[in-house]
């Protein structure tokens, strides 16, 4: 299988080029001939009352490239996914695969008092659990920096469509549910691609893959079982003593940073900035991908320049000197490591 695909790169490539050559020509010819026909008919019927047929012909010719039904457009599913992400309650079992490793998780998501409560518990490996409460509700309000960039907003979706080719890749069945497969293929080399299987009924992503430029899958998150009935309060409570609780109400702060990022990949906008231990963290998103820049004075033991990779997440570390003071730079995100490196190199102190 692998062998077969690998041994015909040239053939595939020339086929692609050949198709490129042919397709536009055919289309152009079709349109041209339609127009000629239409003009001829218009001329022929100029004296009679038959003015409509030519218009019809033109309309049909144009209609071929337009989407037929709304639910066949990628934009429709993008929108549906965005709605589900904000409003849906569910609980389910998920497989999470990365670093060549398969883990299973229990995920629960409920809405209490207008706030999202989300719980994640690993069912394999060491016991790990996280309960997140109160996130986003106020971050998503109009006017907040976050609301401008997220996929759920109109401008956010436009941004995503400007930066990724959004393609429908057919149907699939995941967790006993029918899904539509949506591919988000980056238009440049500074972000990862995504393959999302969107639940037809609710718009919930049932499976999502992160794919690098070589087509390798870096991470796979996939439901095995999904329950969409309202979530009990008890299901939102931590099941283990060691569970970590995350209630960062002030998390979408927007402090004025003292740092200047002279280069970020096209389409990425600052969506949050806040203080952390010994420094700042600045969050950037293109509506889909997110990366975070940490600039901290951490002391000499953090004198490290290089990268760390875990699954689809990379952390690129470097440093910057401002006068005598040394700051550690860490760029973290699900982005190509080279992109993280470029971001890190472009950081400077504001004057």
């Amino acid at each position, binding site marked *: 299988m692998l062998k077969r695909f690998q041994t015909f790169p040239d053939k595939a490539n020339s086929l692609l080029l050949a198709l490129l050559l042919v397709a*536009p020509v055919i289309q152009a010819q079709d349109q041209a001939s339609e127009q000629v026909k239409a003009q001829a008919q218009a001329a022929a019927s100029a004296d009679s009352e038959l003015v409509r047929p030519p218009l019809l012909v033109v309309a049909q010719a144009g209609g071929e490239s337009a989407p037929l039904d709304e639910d066949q457009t990628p934009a429709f599913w993008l929108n549906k996914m965005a709605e589900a992400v904000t409003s849906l309650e569910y609980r389910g079992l998920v497989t999470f695969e990365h670093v060549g490793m398969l883990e299973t998780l229990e995920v629960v998501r409920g809405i209490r008092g207008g706030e999202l409560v989300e719980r994640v518990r690993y069912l394999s490996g060491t016991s790990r659990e996280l309960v997140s409460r109160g996130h986003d509700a106020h971050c998503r309000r109009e006017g907040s920096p976050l609301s401008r960039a997220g996929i759920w907003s109109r401008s956010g979706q436009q941004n995503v469509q400007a930066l990724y080719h959004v393609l429908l890749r057919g149907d699939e069945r995941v967790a006993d549910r029918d899904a539509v497969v949506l591919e988000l293929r980056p238009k440049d080399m500074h972000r990862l691609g995504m393959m999302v299987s969107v639940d037809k009924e609710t718009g919930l992503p049932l499976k999502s893959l992160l794919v690098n430029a070589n087509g390798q899958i870096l991470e796979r998150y996939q439901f095995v079982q999904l329950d969409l009935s309202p979530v009990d309060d008890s299901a939102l409570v931590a099941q283990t003593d060691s569970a970590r609780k995350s209630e960062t109400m002030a998390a979408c702060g927007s402090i004025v940073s003292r740092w200047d990022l002279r280069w970020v990949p096209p389409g990425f906008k600052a969506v949050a900035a806040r203080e952390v231990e010994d420094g700042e963290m600045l969050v950037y998103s293109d509506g889909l991908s*997110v990366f975070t820049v940490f600039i901290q004075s951490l002391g000499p033991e953090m004198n490290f320049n290089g990268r760390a990779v*875990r699954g689809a997440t990379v952390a690129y570390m470097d440093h910057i000197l401002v006068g005598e003071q040394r700051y550690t730079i860490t760029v973290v995100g699900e982005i190509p490591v080279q992109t993280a490196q470029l971001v890190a190199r472009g950081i400077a102190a504001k004057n």
Partner: protein
Amino acid sequence: MSHGKHQQRLNESLSAMMDGEASELEIQRLLKESSAGGGADDLGQRWSRYQLAASVMRGEQVAPVDLGLAASISVAIDEEPAHHVQPDVAANDAGARSRWWRPLSRGAVAATVAFAAVLGVQQIQQPVTSGGELVAEVERPVQQPVQSAPRPSGFYVPALNTRSVSTMPLVTPEQRGVAGQQNLPAQLVPSADLMRHLNRVMVEHSEQAAQMGSQGMVPFARATYGEQPPE
């Protein structure tokens, strides 16, 4: 003349990338070019066109279809020289073979680093010779794929691998070496402080990404993944 040659290499790298066969070296070269300005727009547009063309070829529907696109593609094709008419067949074969093996060896690398981190050494600067040709860089570990083989035509190939690996990030230092100097990969266990720092920034990043909401609960899974049980 060297500019044309350079451009041709870029085009070949781009084609390889489209076929999912670009080496790290080629990706580096493309990235460098695309961020260097100048020919960047041209390269970016070509990348975008190739992606679109591949989709059209598979009969997929493409989001906002630009009606001017067909025309621009045909014009661009006229301008582009034919690809992959490489006289050097032997080199081509060798290239194909090495591409063929790389995913396997990457998987093998991942397998050996269960608990220690592998440190590959590389040059951060990609020295450019006077002719504009890039000097070869050292291969090093990158984001590890879930499956070790490139995805052939889609996502229906779940080459599952349940090998047990540490939750520790794979760490690779950079060395701003002298141009042309060959550094050998070294192995080293990163300090506990460094690991703590990396883990913490990954957690903080993931929780922030979770608030963005665009990826659902996936970032929470990432955030919790590397957590260590309390001691």
